Each structure stands twice: as structure tokens, then as C-alpha cells.
């Protein structure tokens, strides 16, 4: 067993709040969206009929947009660091991707390179979520507010982009949920985002060795 004792504050209160808001919105948006894309009346009825469900969908969309926007404005430093981390890919990240971080059973992973605050997989997820959300926003709002003025082709285009982005996002988020909450190797991180923000220093030194080294140096 390792010697490192103590805890690491991985996610601040504001970050966690934003994550919660986004999570709840995402579930509502996904549910209502699936409901009216596939004509599942039982889902629509959950929100009080199809017209109400779409009302819920658009207004949840507003919160879904404003939440991260306000967060970024008030936490620019955290945001900038986050962006820096997820857009920096070194050979350690590619090494992680080659072995898939040891998460995939049939890929042998004897040595996994040290990782930043977020491993390469999480970086890709972060980028996917940011690009995906931007696409959802730029197609979603016109379908709601400009549906009268837009030509049919644009309504159609928005619809298609909105749908396929949603498919990709939902799949990505399902994977994210599995690794962060269910997978025995990584589920200890669940609490850091969903509850108090802390992770074991011991765990961090393994999973995010490069970041932990920085934190230690700063001590």
C-alpha cells in the first residue's frame, strides 16, 4: 500500500452545482426529446401532454444554456484551466488511448502513462460535451424561436443535426456515467463531483499522477 494520506479537492462547490444543473437538465431534455422524436406518448404524459412536454423541453433548454454560461462568466479561471487541460494532448494521452486506460477488458494494459487532472478519455468527453452542447444550442433555439421565419430546409437541417448530436451526446454520457459511477476502478470519483468534491490523494496519485505532482509541488 502506498504512503500517501489525505484528500484532494477536485471539484469546487460552483463546479459541482453547475454539473448538477446540467445533469438534471440533460435528463429532462433527453427524456422529453426521445418522447417526441419517437412519439412515445407515455413520456409526453409524464410532462403533462405533448405540448407541455415541448414547453418543458424548450425552457429546460434555456436553463441548460444559461447554467454553463453563467458558470463560465463567474469562474473564468477554472474554465480556462479546464479548457487548457482538455485541449492539451501529449504522448502520455495517446499512450492512455492506446491502452484505453485499462478500462477495456480485452486490451492489455501493463503500463498506463501518467495523466493530467483529466485522463485522455475524460478530455475527449469534455470536448464532445462542449461541441455537442453548442450544436444543440445553435440548432435548438432556431427550431423554437425562428420556426416561422426559417425556410423548410433549415428546419429540417436543424432537426437532423439536433437529433444526431443528441444521439452522440446520450451515448457519451452513458459511458461517462458508467465509468464514473459504476466501474469499480473509477467509481470512487463519483463523490467528488456529486457530493463533497473530494477524492483520495492515494487514488489521485495513481489516476492523475501528473496533476497530483503539480499539487504536491504547490504545497
Amino acid at each position, binding site marked *: 500500500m502506498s504512503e500517501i*494520506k489525505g*484528500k484532494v*479537492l477536485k471539484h469546487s462547490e460552483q463546479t459541482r452545482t453547475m454539473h448538477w444543473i446540467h445533469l438534471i437538465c440533460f435528463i429532462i431534455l433527453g427524456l422529453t426529446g426521445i418522447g417526441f422524436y419517437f412519439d412515445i406518448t407515455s413520456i409526453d404524459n409524464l410532462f403533462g401532454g405533448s405540448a407541455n412536454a415541448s414547453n418543458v423541453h424548450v425552457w429546460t433548454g434555456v436553463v441548460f444554456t444559461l447554467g454553463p454560461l453563467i458558470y463560465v462568466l463567474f469562474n*473564468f*479561471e477554472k474554465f480556462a484551466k479546464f479548457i487548457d487541460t482538455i485541449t492539451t494532448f501529449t504522448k502520455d494521452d495517446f499512450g492512455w488511448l492506446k491502452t484505453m486506460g485499462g478500462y477495456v477488458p480485452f486490451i492489455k494494459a501493463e503500463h498506463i502513462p501518467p495523466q493530467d487532472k483529466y485522463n485522455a478519455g475524460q478530455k475527449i468527453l469534455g470536448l464532445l460535451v462542449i461541441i455537442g452542447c*453548442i450544436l444543440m444550442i445553435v440548432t435548438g433555439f432556431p427550431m423554437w424561436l425562428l420556426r416561422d421565419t426559417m425556410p423548410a430546409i*433549415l428546419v429540417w437541417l436543424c432537426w437532423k443535426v439536433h437529433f444526431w448530436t443528441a444521439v452522440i451526446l446520450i451515448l457519451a454520457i452513458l459511458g461517462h456515467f458508467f465509468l464514473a459511477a459504476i466501474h469499480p476502478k473509477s467509481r470512487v470519483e463519483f463523490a467528488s463531483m456529486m457530493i463533497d468534491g473530494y477524492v483520495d*490523494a492515494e487514488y489521485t496519485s495513481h489516476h492523475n499522477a501528473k496533476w497530483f505532482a503539480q*499539487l*504536491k509541488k504547490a504545497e
Partner: protein
Amino acid sequence: MNIFVERGGITRRQFFKGTGIIAATAVFAGILGKIGIDIFKASDKYIEKRIAGLYTLDERMTIRKSHENPEIIQIYKEFLSPGEVKPLTEKSHHLLHTKYGSEIPELIKELEAHRHHAA
């Protein structure tokens, strides 16, 4: 117990990346908006082209006025107003004119009476 916390403050590189991505998003949205407006402007061009098509056909016609159509003159002279070209005769009222709204039931009765009479 040891608590590890990230230090505040960001590097220049982090600052530029953070502002950069916000700017990039704004530019991206602007480009999409521009494309949208272009598509909007082009979206009814087909109407103009079809209109131009009909006006071109009109220009190429040798006869461009209805009352000069020889078959029109013929149908009046032989059928609608025998011997002359005279619109609004009784025959043309019967075949070529109609009534609207509440006057229709009366018109149907007239037309049916005419049919029985003709038979």
C-alpha cells in the same frame, strides 16, 4: 490530514485558451447564422425563376392578347354568340359563369332543370 487544493491564478496560455474558445464559439455561431441567412435568401429563388420562365414564354408567343386568339374568335362565332364575338351572352352565362356562397343551391337547381330540359 493532508488536503490538496489547486492554487488560484492562471498562466497566459490558459487565459488565451479560455478566451480563445469563447471567441471561437462566437465566430462559429456567426458563421452558422450567416449560412442560415444565405439559405434563407436563396430559399425562394425558384419562384423568381419560374416567374421568369413564364414571362419568357409570353414574350415568345406570336399572339399576346386573348381577344386575338383565333380559336377564341371561332368559339364565339360558332358556338357562344353565333355570328359574332360577344361575351356575356346567355350561353356563356350558362357555361362560363357561376355563383357563390348562398346563391349556389339555386344555381344547382337551374342547372339541373336545364339538364332535364336538354335531355
